């Protein structure tokens, strides 16, 4: 098992800078998730770690070795591809055994490892089949099995679940996590799905346009996003953003959205003071905006807003409301038994402990 370090890694295709000054240290045994929108360079980064793509500049270290110039097979990694990339002309057994054969393992050893992996993944009865005789979920398991049998130092996953249906994805998510616990291996896992990132990662690395935006554990990323992009990317439905002007009245500091005002808590006052009479981006997560009727706690002057309900989305466990404040369209989460109807006027309370504030130009958080 081993750590993986990327030091100031760059990747250019011609003139296009795809990965920019990427530095990340993944400690031994960590499940690290690379997440970001489509085309942000996640796969490219992963492929550089695998050795399938050359590094334009910077260093990649696996264990204690700089591996920039090592071919993939000598890096002691295994990779699972989005489309599984099983060899169509080989049986499941042969697919899993292929790499071991090339490494000159003895036949009994190969057979033992393949059977063991097949047992773990519940595909022992499929070993004689060809990939085309398998369902999507089974192929996915075989692809994982092919990685497991090699007992690599590092597993690399490139969106391995994105071709599965929603139910199977949830199931495989849990299974991969269990597998990680059992194998105690280092994993770098690429996905564009923030739910996968949140549920699976020990740490999440959020990327945008080839640069790292934030690296932290899921909860910190969720509660303390470094910038507006992270705040908007992590969480579903996404964080509400609105422009608000900072104004001071007496001792108190307020954020004025235009239609309503929110009092800034005392502990954030120092962060906000430099922006008096300037605009900030106010970020509030849907679950931090409450129906005034059901929210009795901590009701203070200056954190109530009202708006007209546009859309009601009942999910069973909760209801999401799309509310128009007059200036912004926001989403908030209310109780599943709320009787709110479209076109109702609703009063909402903002939990001021949970607000996020970002600089208007740079999008950086000012609350850190």
């Amino acid at each position, binding site marked *: 098992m081993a750590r993986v370090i990327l030091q100031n890694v760059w990747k250019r295709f011609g003139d296009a800078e795809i990965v920019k000054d990427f530095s990340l240290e993944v400690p031994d045994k960590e499940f690290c998730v690379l997440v970001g929108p489509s085309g942000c360079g996640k796969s490219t980064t992963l492929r550089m770690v695998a050795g399938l793509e050359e590094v334009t500049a910077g260093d990649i270290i696996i264990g204690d070795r700089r591996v920039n110039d090592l071919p993939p097979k000598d890096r002691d990694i295994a990779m699972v591809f989005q489309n599984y990339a099983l060899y169509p002309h080989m049986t499941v057994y042969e697919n899993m055994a292929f790499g071991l054969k090339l490494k000159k393992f003895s036949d009994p050893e190969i057979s033992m490892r393949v059977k063991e992996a097949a047992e773990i993944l519940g595909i022992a009865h499929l070993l004689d089949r*060809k990939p085309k005789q398998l369902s999507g979920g089974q192929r996915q398991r075989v692809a994982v099995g092919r990685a497991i049998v090699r007992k690599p130092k590092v597993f690399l996953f490139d969106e391995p679940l994105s071709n599965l249906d929603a139910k199977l994805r949830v199931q495989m998510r849990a299974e991969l996590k269990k597998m990680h616990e059992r194998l105690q291996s280092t994993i770098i896992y690429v996905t564009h799905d923030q739910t996968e990132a949140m549920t699976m990662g020990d740490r999440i690395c959020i990327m945008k346009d080839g640069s790292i935006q934030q690296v932290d554990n899921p909860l910190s990323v969720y509660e303390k996003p470094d910038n507006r992009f992270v705040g908007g990317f992590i969480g579903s439905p996404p964080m509400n953003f609105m422009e608000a002007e900072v104004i001071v009245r007496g001792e108190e500091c307020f954020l004025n959205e235009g239609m309503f005002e929110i009092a800034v808590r005392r502990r954030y006052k120092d962060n906000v003071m430099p922006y008096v009479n300037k605009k900030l981006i106010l970020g509030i997560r849907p679950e931090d905006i409450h129906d005034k009727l059901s929210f009795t706690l901590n009701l203070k002057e200056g954190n109530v807003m009202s708006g007209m309900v546009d859309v009601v989305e009942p999910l069973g466990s909760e209801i999401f409301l799309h509310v128009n404040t007059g200036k912004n369209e926001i989403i908030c989460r209310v109780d599943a038994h709320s009787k709110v109807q479209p076109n109702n006027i609703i009063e909402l309370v903002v939990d001021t402990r949970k607000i996020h504030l970002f600089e208007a130009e740079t999008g950086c958080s000012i609350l850190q």
Partner: protein
Amino acid sequence: MTLYHIMKIKKYVNHAILYSLLILFGITMVFPFLWMLSTSLKDPSQVFTASLQLIPDPIVWKNYAEAWEAIPFGRFYMNSVAVALAVTLGQVLTSSMAAYAFSRLKFPGRDSIFLGYLATMMIPGMVVTIPVFILLKSLGWLDSYKALILPGVFSAYGTFMLRQFFMTLPADLEDAAKIDGCSLWRIYWQIILPLSKPALSTLAMFTFLGNWQSFFWPLVVTSSESMKTLPIGLSYFQDIYTTEWTLLMAGSIIVLVPALLVFILNQKFITQGIALTGLKG
């Protein structure tokens, strides 16, 4: 009559028309072969009768024996088989290797070299006959298997066709193989080739058939009897003054059989879709 019935009848009529047309075309295609078969079993006196008699009376089997005796068929057969097989094997090998390089490896000037190679397809074969002849002559290879085989082993067309096919194979397979520890050679040999069976066998079939019936080139480069191939042998039946039609047709049938076999055996591969189902959906 309901609408349903009318539609059903319409469907039958449509099918009837379609099938009649297809059968008509089928007969037009097959008829020359049947006529050849028929002639090969006729008595020489019946070849040019006015009536269109498809089943000869009497059936003259001995035409075949005579044709076989008339020229050194055994030797020609062996030459033809050896040359066609060697050219086919060689061409499939060189074409697939070149195609792999042109489709999968990255090296400077790759695409311009490929374009240059393709451009050679624009040059008619006749134009290079004399240069190649002179080349073989100066190598001292005339009238040998080398002369019959080597010029046919390299093919821009085969390279082009296989390159196009290889480019449709998913790159992830190769990446997976690299991680599994394959060298480039092994990727070519154990991943690319097995997945390209349909394309390879199509190329092999066309090469074999093309070579089997090749007349001009063997005629040009061979002089001794022991180097001749079947198509040249057949031309022996055709004299300036007389042509022994029954023997010529019997000989042609004998020559045709292996080609037909190759075609029938390959049909499965050619019509078979490409099973790339190790990949999604």
